[in-house]
């Protein structure tokens, strides 16, 4: 009896992860595509110096960050996939979402200060998963994107 309850619990969580997680991911990718399109005019470089022939009025530190977590289905799918090795597509899309979201937030901050370019951009990922009460940790990670937003000379 207990085994049936446990299996039932597992199946319900898996179903929640599959439906809610997928809907979430689809919506997130759609939103990302829209926001990215609206921020396309802000140029992002990871070069260390801005071009010397351009004049800039000011530089501001801009940061974008997001913490993103896996869903239950991804976790099981990735766990099964790890048995045979190879590409973990469940995590690839998750990390892609996180990183793009961080870049979008950085660009939005740059837009607020009236910048048109961001230089010396750095991307960082750190895992925040933790072990609670001896169970295997759920994976979550923080993504940061930061750089110097440059406002061109001659703008108010």
């Amino acid at each position, binding site marked *: 009896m207990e085994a049936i309850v446990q299996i039932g619990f597992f199946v319900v969580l898996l179903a929640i*992860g599959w439906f809610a997680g997928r809907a979430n991911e689809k919506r997130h990718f759609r939103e990302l595509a829209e926001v990215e399109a609206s921020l396309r005019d802000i140029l992002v470089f990871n070069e260390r110096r801005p071009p010397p022939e351009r004049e800039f009025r000011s530089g*501001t*530190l801009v940061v974008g960050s997001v913490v993103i*977590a896996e869903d239950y289905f991804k976790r099981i799918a990735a766990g099964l996939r790890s048995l045979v090795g190879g590409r973990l597509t469940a995590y690839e899309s998750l990390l892609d979402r996180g990183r793009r979201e961080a870049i979008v937030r950085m660009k939005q901050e740059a837009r607020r200060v009236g910048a048109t370019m961001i230089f010396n951009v750095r991307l960082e990922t750190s895992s925040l998963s933790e072990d609670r009460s001896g169970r295997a940790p759920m994976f979550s990670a*923080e993504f940061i994107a*930061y750089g110097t937003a440059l406002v061109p000379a001659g703008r108010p």
Partner: protein
Amino acid sequence: MELTTLETVPGKTITRHLGLVQGSTVRSKHAGKDFLAGLKNFVGGELKSYTALLNESRNEAIERMVAQAKAVGANAIVNIRFSTSNIAAGAAEVMAYGTAVVVG
């Protein structure tokens, strides 16, 4: 105080280097928020309370770094970098560091 990830402050020249300055903070998650985040884990997606927590921590790390730079008489910090590390269950360290300079 000018903050930048570049090696120089745009439109200005560095007249003096005053060395490395850094600020850091260790924050732990709120137990109630942590519980909600735990539930959120079944559906995945952004953990907004953690995003806010880490943003707050980063701002504090920046403030501490700026305070250190002011103490040595700087008016700008160049080459700023951030790092986050998970040091214990439920706690994260956020650090900001850079080079304090005087620009004119």
